[in-house]
């Protein structure tokens, strides 16, 4: 690629003072002299090899980094090179200002001069008009997270990790532009092509850099999939030197066993108190009525036994007192949790010569999670080769392999056992698993079948031992590329990528597992006093196989050349892309994991349940299969014209067609395009402020698109297998009405940016950007009259508008013995829904901000509350306002209009960023990362009597202990009184009242890294050793706005433990 070379040239040149004088007075041999410095540390570099291209003379820098040489030709090129640094080539003329001071950059560390990867081309930031963010390898590798998402947070401005759902954090680039949880995700490009696999299967250690394309000019080249921004992951490239360069990285991360008592849940005494209350109110009486009924908590069973005279008052109290001594959190912590450990091993070997460059990397990750029985392993292997047959022709050949295995054998963590009460122990004193009843009453499971059935008790600790659940992930990517370039700047290239992925979920319920025993018992029949098993005794094996594949072919023509002051960089191309997903599932009964045998069952006959207690049903069976196919054809073009290296204009255009859309949309010529301009003001001859090294202005305008996930233009009928049918028949159903006008969502962005570099040695560098964006045709549901047969139908119907600012500011505070760089990221991002044909209103205008709540004219993650009028002093009921009158009519208050409600603001922070400090002293380096977010709100979890009574367990909020009990309590508490029957509307009203919302603003110290780098002087092969320790998830609040001292990003559940890492890195050459 021609521009590749060009780019690297421009990248590596960084002259402090370099200007060409107009004098041609001198001729012949003249002396050029100067110094060579390390661009990062500004220290002089010894031993830099300096060659003159034409005259072939050469020299080296001395210990002070200075050099001199003689010029024989009037114009020549000096090449500066040293291992570990990027080569610098400078054109020299016979008359030039001296000394010629050259800054060389370490080949590992890229500083402010960067090449952005768009996935289609490499763009030097010097010529980029659009809005890009860049994470270099040094910053990236400071973090030790085991996947890409956990490493990216807080490293660039404009990007925020939405942790509303802690299990599935999503990345948002400049807010969201879509109203679907899948479609709002940014497009991920791995090297050259969209990545369809799972992000967890990428090894973050194998990443060289990350480029983030934020505005339309940057992303519109990805067309109809780029509306929510693009994240380009660039894998490590082959090293430049002739010598083989080898790198080893090993690290280990541990995190202590979590403290379950930090989850603010109810005490055991409260559980017992509550169950007594429910028993007295007759809550369990309908269950006591049935001998096959739902399980009843132990306390209620004891009280009933006492009532029936089966146990004495004394025994009852003794037993209750015993239960009070137990707290199942102790047992959970002890038996089901463990400290987590994660280890990473990673190595690369790379090198290059005239005809061949290569990199081979291998990584192995091994981790144990906090839940016992859950662990995962990942193995990554990659080999990339570039072979140059001649100056003009080269090919690229690469293969990438990821194998991931995870075991998920934990029967579930704390909070996953709705039928276990706080006083249940999991193990008896000698560590034997305790049997529990989770579906049926003990009296039922103890007596039914007169002991002939399989045991019907549940023992969480046995389940941990008996589970064999494995998830295997394989991902293979093969790349092939041919590259031919002509001398006049034209290059043609073809790239082909094939990706195959397979994800196999395998669940073996051992024959002694509760799952198997429960199902086998349910289908058992008593015949003449003996038990006949319809489901064979044995294990039950579920498998789900998901396959995905993606084929891409792209042909591209590039033209890059310079004519005097004019520089042109352009490309046109076309791409065909197909991605397929397929899944198959299967159930086997009577499975023997040793002999690998199973027993066939009859899935077509309805069987009665045991003693016909639960009616007739089919044995769960059936293979389910699923197939998806997406096809795209795209054409695109992109051009940049630069004049005198000062002015650049860029334009891009892309047209996509897809089988998701109707013919109407495909045939309409409605391309996505962008325009941009860039002006390096400081390069103007008249610009004469010595302290300003760089001052550039950028502006762009353009459109990108976004495809609503799973939408199609056709009437959708879904086919289902017989196992989903009550009559055991394959069937089809109408899933969605036709949508012939389906089209992509359009995001229009306008972006202005300023880049600057101030004072000597680039003491202050940074950029400020301002953008506005507008999304239209957002795919969102619209409400229909139910007479038509559907109540809602998604359509291209909603709109959003947003604007914001991204600031990057890097200050080299100290540059001498101690080097202290401070990098501040600040983003402001505000957006609101401007049109929504299906406004949320059904159960009242109140929200928690944890899911989309798109009200017109408000932020889509809006927090809205009921006004709070305090607890009723007479009965402890929560009160709000109905038509401005104090009210307890929770049903009517659901119809309050938005004007009657309290609007807090967004749940996603509009002001956010980070402050990263790097302090270097000799061989030591300290990094301190501070994150901050402002301007958003959160709702704390509250006591919900309805779900507490029904499910117990994780719904038992500590507020229970503070609840209103008697008149006067309302002065000290806002927690409503316990009533029976519970009223879910009352619970809801309280949960969604304004008192439970506070500002989520925080500044927190989150990570610290200390590094020691040793560069041996006397060995040839060992280049450097880096040792480091890293502490993450510290959650030390410098400032936390809410009075409850709740971590706004860890609202529910126990506090996440801190993680500690140590690691070592060896570089050999």
């Amino acid at each position, binding site marked *: 690629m021609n521009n590749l070379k060009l780019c690297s040239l421009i990248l590596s040149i960084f002259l402090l003072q370099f200007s060409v004088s107009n004098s041609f007075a001198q001729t012949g041999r003249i002396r050029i002299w100067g110094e060579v410095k390390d661009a990062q540390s500004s220290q002089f570099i010894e031993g830099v090899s300096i060659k003159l291209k034409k005259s072939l003379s050469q020299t080296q820098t001395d210990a002070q980094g200075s050099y001199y040489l003689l010029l024989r030709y009037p114009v020549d090129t000096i090449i500066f090179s040293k291992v570990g640094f990027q080569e610098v080539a400078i054109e020299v003329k016979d008359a030039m200002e001296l000394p010629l001071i050259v800054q060389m950059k370490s080949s590992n560390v890229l500083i402010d001069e960067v090449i952005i990867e768009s996935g289609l081309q490499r763009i030097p930031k010097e010529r980029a008009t659009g809005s890009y963010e860049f994470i270099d390898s040094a910053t990236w590798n400071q973090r030790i997270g085991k996947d890409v998402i956990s490493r990216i947070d807080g490293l660039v401005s404009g990007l925020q990790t939405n942790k509303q759902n802690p299990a599935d954090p999503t990345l948002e680039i400049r807010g969201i532009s879509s109203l679907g949880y899948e479609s709002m995700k940014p497009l991920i490009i791995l090297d050259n092509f969209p990545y369809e696999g799972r992000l967890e299967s990428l090894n973050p250690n194998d990443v060289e850099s990350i480029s983030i394309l934020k505005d339309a000019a940057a992303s519109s080249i990805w067309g109809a999939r780029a509306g929510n921004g693009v994240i380009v992951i660039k894998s490590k490239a082959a090293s430049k030197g002739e010598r083989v360069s080898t790198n080893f990285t090993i690290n280990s991360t541990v995190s202590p066993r979590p403290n379950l008592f930090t989850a603010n849940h109810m005490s055991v005494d409260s559980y017992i108190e509550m169950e007594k209350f429910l028993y007295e109110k*007759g809550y369990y*009486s*309908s269950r006591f*009525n*049935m001998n096959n009924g739902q399980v009843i908590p132990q306390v209620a069973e004891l009280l009933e036994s006492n009532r029936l005279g089966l146990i004495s008052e004394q025994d009852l109290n003794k037993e209750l007192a015993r239960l009070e001594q137990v707290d199942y959190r102790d047992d959970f912590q002890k038996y089901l949790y463990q400290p987590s450990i994660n280890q990473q091993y990673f190595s690369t070997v790379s090198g290059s010569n005239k005809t061949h460059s290569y990199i081979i990397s291998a990584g192995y990750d091994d981790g144990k999670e906090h839940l016992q029985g859950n662990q995962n392993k990942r193995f990554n292997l990659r080999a990339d080769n570039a072979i140059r047959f001649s100056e003009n022709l080269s090919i690229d050949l690469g293969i990438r392999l990821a194998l991931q295995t995870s075991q998920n054998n934990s029967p579930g963590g704390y909070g996953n056992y709705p039928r276990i009460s706080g006083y249940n122990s999991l193990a008896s004193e000698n560590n034997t698993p305790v049997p529990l009843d989770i579906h049926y009453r003990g009296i039922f499971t103890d007596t039914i079948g007169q002991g002939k059935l399989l045991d019907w008790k549940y023992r969480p600790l046995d389940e941990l031992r008996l589970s064999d659940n494995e998830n295997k992930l394989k991902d293979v990517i093969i790349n092939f590329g041919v590259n031919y370039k002509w001398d006049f700047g034209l290059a043609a290239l073809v790239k082909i990528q094939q990706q195959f992925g397979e994800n196999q979920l395998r669940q073996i319920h051992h024959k002694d597992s509760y799952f198997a025993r429960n199902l086998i018992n349910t289908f058992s029949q008593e015949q003449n006093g003996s038990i006949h098993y319809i489901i064979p005794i044995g294990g039950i094996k579920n498998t789900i196989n998901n396959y995905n594949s993606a084929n891409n072919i792209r042909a591209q023509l590039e033209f890059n050349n310079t004519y005097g002051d004019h520089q042109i960089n352009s490309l046109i191309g076309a791409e*065909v892309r197909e991605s397929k997903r397929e899944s198959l599932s299967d159930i086997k009964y009577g499975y023997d994991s040793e002999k690998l045998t199973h027993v066939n069952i009859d899935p077509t006959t*309805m069987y*009665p*349940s045991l*003693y*016909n*207690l*639960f*009616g*007739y*049903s089919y044995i769960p069976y059936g293979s389910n299969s*699923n*197939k*998806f*196919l*997406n*096809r795209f*054809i795209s054409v695109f073009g992109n051009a940049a014209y630069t004049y005198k290296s000062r002015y650049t204009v860029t334009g891009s255009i892309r*047209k996509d*067609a*897809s*089988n998701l859309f109707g*013919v109407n949309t*495909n*045939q309409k010529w409605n391309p996505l395009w962008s325009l941009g301009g860039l002006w390096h003001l400081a390069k103007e001859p008249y610009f004469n402020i010595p302290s300003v090294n760089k001052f550039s202005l950028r502006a762009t305008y353009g459109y990108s698109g976004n495809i609503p996930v799973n939408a*199609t233009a*056709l*009437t*959708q*009928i*879904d*086919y289902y297998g017989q196992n989903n*049918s*009550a*009559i055991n*028949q394959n*069937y*089809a*159903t*109408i899933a969605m*009405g036709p949508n012939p006008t389906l089209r992509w969502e359009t995001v229009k962005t306008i972006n202005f940016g300023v880049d600057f570099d101030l004072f000597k040695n680039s003491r202050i560098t940074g950029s400020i950007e301002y953008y506005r964006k507008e999304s239209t045709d957002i795919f969102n549901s619209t*409400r*229909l*009259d*139910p*007479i*038509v*047969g*559907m*109540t809602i139908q998604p359509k291209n119907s909603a709109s959003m508008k947003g604007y914001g600012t991204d600031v990057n500011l890097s200050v080299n505070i100290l540059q001498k013995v101690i080097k202290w760089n401070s990098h501040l990221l600040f983003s402001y991002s505000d957006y609101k829904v401007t049109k929504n044909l299906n406004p949320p209103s059904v159960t009242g205008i109140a929200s928690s901000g944890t899911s989309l709540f798109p009200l017109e004219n408000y932020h889509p993650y809006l927090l809205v509350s009921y006004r709070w009028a305090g607890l009723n002093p007479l009965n402890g009921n929560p009160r709000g306002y109905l038509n401005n009158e104090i009210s307890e009519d929770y*049903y009517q208050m659901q119809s309050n209009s938005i004007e009657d409600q309290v609007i807090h603001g967004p749940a996603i922070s509009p002001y956010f960023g980070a402050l990263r400090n790097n302090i270097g002293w000799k061989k030591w380096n300290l990094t301190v990362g501070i994150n901050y977010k402002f301007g958003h709100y959160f709702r704390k979890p509250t006591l919900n009597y309805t779900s507490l009574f029904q499910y117990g367990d994780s719904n038992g909020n500590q507020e229970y202990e503070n609840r209103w009990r008697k008149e006067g309590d309302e002065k000290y508490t806002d927690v409503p009184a316990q009533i*029976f*029957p*519970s*009223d879910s509307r009352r619970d809801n009203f309280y949960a969604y009242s304004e008192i439970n919302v506070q500002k989520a603003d925080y500044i927190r110290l989150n990570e610290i890294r200390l590094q020691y780098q040793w560069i041996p002087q006397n060995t040839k092969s060992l280049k450097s050793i880096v040792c480091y320790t890293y502490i993450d998830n510290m959650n030390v609040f410098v400032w936390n706005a809410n009075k409850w001292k709740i971590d706004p990003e860890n609202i529910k559940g126990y506090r996440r433990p801190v993680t500690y890492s140590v690691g070592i890195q060896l570089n050999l050459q």
Partner: protein
Amino acid sequence: MLCVSCEKYLNEKPSAKIATPSTLEDVQLLLKDYARLNAAHPNAAELASDNFYVNIQNLNSASERERKTYLWQENDEVGPFWTSPYRAIFISNIIMETVEKVEGGEESIKKNYYAQARFWRALYHYSLATLFCKPYSKESAETDLGIPLKITADINLIPQRSTVMETYEFIISEIQQALPHLDTDITVKYQPNRAGSYGFLSRIYLAMNDYTKAELYADSCLQIYSTLIDYNEINTSQNVPFQARNAEVILDVQASVASLLHRNRGHVDTFLLKSYSENDLRVPAFFTLNADKTRGFKGHYSGSSSAIQFVGIATDEIYLIKAECSARMGKTDLALKYLNLLLSKRIKKDTFVEVAETDPVKLLHIILLERRKELIARGLRWTDLRRLNQDEKYKETLKRKLGSDIYELLPGGDRYVFKIIKESVEFSGLTQNP
């Protein structure tokens, strides 16, 4: 801009599971959408009738919709009472329109599929009519408001309310047009069939107080299929004594049991309970005995312990229609014959004594009571209340007592007609019921 081959490339459908219904195979699979065609019947009727009562604790923990329905309170958030029949109607319309478009294929099969969908469309219009219109009365049917008749799948065409006369005429004529193309064979009981359609017409005519036609169609139905289960031969003590699509079932239609009426919450009306004789096998077959001596219902013809109720056509109902119509028209012998045929399969064999009442009024009274006893939890009591309230002799005021509160539903009261869902009133300006 797109070349022909590109277009071809892009014409591949994005998912094997997603398709425009276009083939007879699709139609066949759509007709097997049991959950949305057979089991989409609203359960409002049982909830608002007087077969079951609940205690205040259970009532308080019920959903708003169930509570208001049970207490006969005004409520326009009727949800599935309105939406699930219209969804079934939408699917039926799609099927009918697809069949019309399919080229080729065997004509008789196409006609059969078309007729099946047509039957479902009529059935669900009827289920709406029993809830959202006044009961059929000759005097006012021409002016009383019916339901909107949705006869196209087009989501942009929203019909206004018809009259009760138009609604019933539409339903009857649709079934009559479907009838000749439906199977006479009833081995596949979840597919609309001829006997089921006759039975259904018989049910509709009875609701319209047209006893001649009701009897006629009952005859037609029983001519094809008349099997009764002898309760002497089943194990009545079982927790779930009856299977789905059992020998008495002609057409399988189901509704979910309202959560309020699940067998441990919904207690059988004590008066009704007392009316069963000592030797009536329906007591052990139908009822569970709770520890507090109340009884729940387990006798659904759905094979389910509690959550699903059978509301389709079964032979027992048709025997009773035949008996009632005969009695009303003075054919006492015939009425007694059909009544005793049924009862002989319900009473303990050696204790069974034939009913021999010859006084037509008394006989009718017996038959109507047997109807209540036999057809409990079939969703039929609601329509019976609505029609019998038109007759001075059988009028009754329903009462619910909860704690100190008493709720009443007077004969012909406004709450015998449900309010139309609020969205349809808002979006399409349908006339709301009082």
